[in-house]
């Protein structure tokens, strides 16, 4: 199963949650920082390889049903995590049934 289906954060990426709910990710391999909004921090929280993209999108989207664009934001965030190399592949056995 590819990380695109069950996103899982790279364990070496350091996460610093700031008091205002936003978050800084530090990638020690690329020596790059990534600033996340509060929504981004929440989506990053989900990326442990046990929850699918669809489930993350649906669950975060359900928080604010009156904001339909939130689902698009979640999808874009997951795409960004992947394209920035912040996720790893997850085998099918390791995820929740």
């Amino acid at each position, binding site marked *: 199963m590819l990380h695109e289906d069950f996103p899982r954060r790279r364990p070496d990426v350091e996460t610093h949650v700031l008091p205002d*709910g936003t978050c800084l990710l530090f990638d020690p391999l690329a020596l790059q920082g990534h600033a996340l909004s509060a929504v981004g*921090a929440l989506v990053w*929280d*989900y990326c*442990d390889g046990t*929850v699918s993209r669809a489930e993350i999108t649906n*669950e975060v989207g*359900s928080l*604010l049903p009156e904001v339909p664009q939130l689902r698009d934001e979640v999808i874009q965030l997951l795409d960004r995590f992947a394209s920035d190399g912040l996720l790893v592949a997850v085998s099918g056995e390791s995820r929740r049934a």
Partner: protein
Amino acid sequence: MLARSTPQTVSPACQPLSVQIAGVAVVIEGLSLELRQRLCELLRPFVTACSDEYADVRFEVKRVPKHTGWIIVQNGEVRQSIQDAEKLLSYLEWCVVAQALEVTSTHAVFHAAALTYGDATVVLAAESGAGKTTLTTSLILRGWLPLADDISLVRLPTLEVQPFPRCFHTDDFTSSNITTPSLFERPGALAGYMRPHTWAPTPSRPTCIIRLERDTHSDSAAYPLTRAEAAGYLFAASIGNLARRASAVRVAVAVATSAQSCWHVNNNRLSETVGLLEQIAATASADATG
């Protein structure tokens, strides 16, 4: 990070909690009964029985099946996700106050402690780490009455400091200096939070403005400040956006020019600083009655 094992059961939430801070109505909804009770204790002086239909600021605490923590939504925006119940309460106690003070139009807000002693009302303006809370608790133990610990509200247009009975946030050092714990309650069973039982009963105009700092290389000492210097320090301690800070300039100048005395106090040794403040307040109190 999430410690996700099995999907959680989402408990039904109880009725919203309504609070009123500096004229701002804040509603917190979605808490479990236990968390609501604990937050209610933390915010008890501000809790109202008002309807939750109208709120200037609204927090929704949400739980969803595949996330082990709490997700806080404020006025329709995701603000924070928190895994730990203690951190959730701490965050809400802070955020509710901060957001209310961000939008209040009835008060100017300063990062300062304030206490009364006889007829004197002393404002201690200082940055974090200067020892406001430690000094405030020490002065309470000596009979001073608190108006505020960390954040002082100055009523507009009377320029009186409003009693603001918010919990003190104390570290181990401050707690270890409290020789009479019965003067304080520990609401919400939250570590590091306590609140004096007794507060100054009414708002009062500041008579002494103190710019407090902590220079450990110098002795505790007090130096007189000009009104302009005091106004500058008070303004520097104002909290709020640009529009609010424009108003804070006028308030800082008015408060400083109407005070009986203004001082710069270095807080190195606690007992010596307490002595200095008592001298300053006693002089101001005698001047006020004389």
